[in-house]
């Protein structure tokens, strides 16, 4: 198996679409197979890596914060970054800067960075394939 670079493009905000989980599963699979990965997050997806996401209790079901253990996308992203590092692979996660500014989500998981569509344009030429996870129509 030859190591390739694969690019994924995401735009859905946290908790809004199953596509987010599917795309993260694909990224995880790509890393497991030994590929380098680029992720361009724009629009609502720039909030996926926002470090100020927080867990909450579930009073309806009688669960306090710890027991509810609410899933946080920032932890999934941090996990993927750690996996890439442990395998000696590159996971380059860019949040579109203008989209970050619009939403005020500047604080992002370590290992992600700010960028622009110019980065995505460059990646498309450098990758074996670019897969766009568009917003569900």
């Amino acid at each position, binding site marked *: 198996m030859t190591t390739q670079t694969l690019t994924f493009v995401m735009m859905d905000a946290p908790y809004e679409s*199953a596509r987010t989980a599917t795309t993260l599963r694909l990224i995880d699979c790509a890393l497991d*197979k030994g*590929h380098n990965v680029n992720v361009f997050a724009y629009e609502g997806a720039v909030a996926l890596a926002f470090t100020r996401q927080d867990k909450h209790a579930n009073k309806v079901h009688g669960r306090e914060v710890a027991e509810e253990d609410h899933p946080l996308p920032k932890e999934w992203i941090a996990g993927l970054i750690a996996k890439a590092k442990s395998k000696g692979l590159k996971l380059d996660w860019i949040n579109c800067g203008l989209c970050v500014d619009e939403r005020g989500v500047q604080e992002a998981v370590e290992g992600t960075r700010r960028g622009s569509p110019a980065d995505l344009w460059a990646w498309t030429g450098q990758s*074996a394939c670019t897969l766009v996870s568009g917003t569900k129509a």
Partner: protein
Amino acid sequence: MSDIMLIESRSMLDSPHVRENFQLAGDLARAGNRVTLFLIENGVLAARQSAAGLPSLANLTVLADAFSLRERAIRPDELNSTIKPSSLDPIVDAMAAGHKVTWF
């Protein structure tokens, strides 16, 4: 002849365009391309024996995400006999091979 993978994550109840996308998959296969239709999320609902809408599968490979099937309590024996449960590996492999991969 091209290698094409089309990913459908919606059911026909989610969008009227899903049927058109299935038709596109069949047309591309009849035109001589090597086409894989990968059903995921609600797209796996079309993989059931009782479902209608998939194009002729004669020249098409159709896979259904095993995780999505389990989420929806669809057993392998409830699938159309020519559709196989699958991991996500074929999608990543297609991308790595430089195939044309599109997610509707």
